[in-house]
């Protein structure tokens, strides 16, 4: 059974790797955004630290965000959206595999491929930028290991949240709108619009325990040493607990939506 999902994953992975020109253009864009953001925060920062964060930590945070942007965003396969709105999705019902699992494998394949295709060039360029604008090394080796671990959690979490957009598409029949709603909430609460460490502490105390911050905020903050390895382990456990809860919830919602789906012939 698992084999078919791995097959789906591989297929999407290879498909995504075909779009190299798109990736290069995307990298250039991300690079410009990164610079822009750092210059902006430089203008904001009048003192050396803000909420215990130095400018060099902040620029590392921004570059990591740009390097791994493909996994931070809430996306939905256009094919899925189209299939649901035009009704072709019913052909998939006849297959003997779980819809949620199939879409999950597809999406993770795409997300992983587009992340792997894009992150290295940005990291390499960012390392060689002038001081205060550049990406610094992780605080220590254990932090780096935890960073990689939490990045995997982030990829899964980002996609698990994306899956709710599919449910919304079933309900609203507007794929663009559904992805938009989920992503605008996620972007604000996960630190894509502004890094969470820059927010007022009282707000951070709430956001730290919501699922969105596990997408990218946790790994980046472990990397720059803003969260100690001890604290990081605790957060990692909370994150995985959220992941399980959200997957179960998402699975049931999709099941419910599929049950309610009326196919109008044609």
């Amino acid at each position: 059974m698992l084999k078919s999902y791995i097959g789906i994953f591989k297929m999407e992975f290879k498909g995504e790797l075909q779009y190299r020109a798109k990736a290069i253009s995307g990298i250039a864009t991300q690079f410009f955004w990164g610079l822009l953001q750092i210059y902006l925060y430089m203008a904001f920062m009048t003192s050396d630290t803000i909420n215990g964060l130095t400018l060099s930590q902040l620029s590392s945070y921004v570059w990591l965000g740009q390097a791994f942007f493909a996994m931070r965003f809430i996306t939905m396969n256009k094919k899925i959206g189209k299939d649901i709105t035009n009704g072709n999705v019913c052909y998939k019902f006849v297959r003997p595999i779980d819809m949620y699992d199939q879409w999950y494998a597809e999406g993770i394949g795409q997300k992983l491929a587009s992340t792997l295709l894009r992150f290295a060039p940005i990291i390499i360029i960012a390392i060689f930028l002038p001081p205060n604008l550049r990406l610094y090394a992780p605080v220590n080796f254990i932090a780096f290991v935890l960073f990689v671990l939490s990045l995997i959690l982030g990829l899964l979490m980002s996609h698990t949240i994306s899956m709710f957009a599919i449910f919304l598409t079933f309900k609203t029949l507007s794929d663009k709108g559904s992805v938009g709603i989920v992503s605008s909430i996620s972007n604000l609460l996960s630190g894509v619009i502004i890094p969470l460490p820059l927010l007022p502490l009282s707000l951070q105390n709430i956001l730290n325990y919501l699922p969105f911050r596990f997408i990218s905020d946790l790994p980046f903050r472990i990397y720059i040493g803003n969260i100690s390895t001890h604290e990081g382990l605790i957060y990692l456990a909370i994150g995985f607990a959220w992941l399980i809860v959200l997957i179960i919830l998402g699975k049931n919602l999709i099941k419910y939506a599929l049950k309610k789906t009326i196919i109008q012939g044609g």
Partner: protein
Amino acid sequence: MLYKNYLKMHIKSSFQYRYNMIFIAFNQVLINIGEVLAVYLLFQQFTLVAGWTFYQSLLMMGIVFTVFPFDECFARGYDEFPQLIQSGDLDRFLIRPVNIHYQIFGSKIEFTKIPRLLLGITISIIALVNINIDWNILKVLVLIATYICGISVIFGLFVFSAGISIFTVENLEFINILTNGSKELAYYPINIYAKWLTRIFTYIIPIACFNYLPLSYILEIGTIPPWLCAISPLLGMLFLIPCVLFFNYSLHKYKSTGT
């Protein structure tokens, strides 16, 4: 008039998918509110950015949020120009005895941007009410010119990238930096960025002309001569000329993609 017919047609066609339209519009407003919230929270932490207060910065955001949806609504044909090329509609436009620009304007009107436009106007009003300004006739005129300048500069960028897409057929993501990059940059006073960035976005793409330049005249702050600040929106509007010339040149070179 022909444009009236275009308008009627687009209203009819978008109201065919009413819920979809409302949903998309609602969602776009939500994105903008999220962005305003983000800026508000940043200002909670820092109170002043390079001497600008939250409401002063909010006014710049209000300008961007007004002029951008305006162009996206009424100049959508240029914004999504690659679609006109790919679908072959451009070829059909070229053989009709009506001005090409007129037809591109009429090819698409995006009504889902209207709520966003209203939000932009609301934000501008909220900001203006909360800033102490000694109003006089000239300042009102400068403010109006600022909005018109914003509309023309962003429209110029749309026309320019449409001109480029005649050669590339597809909309390159990199070109988006020009439009979306300018937009995000203009959320804050442009002069807070690094010198080279400020220069590019003052002299090459005149974002500053609907951003901190006219506002420093209206708010009476800054070191740049006031008369220069006052006429800056007029200078910014000139940006449209080379963009249109470039577009016409590209169109002259246009070879159809075939069917």
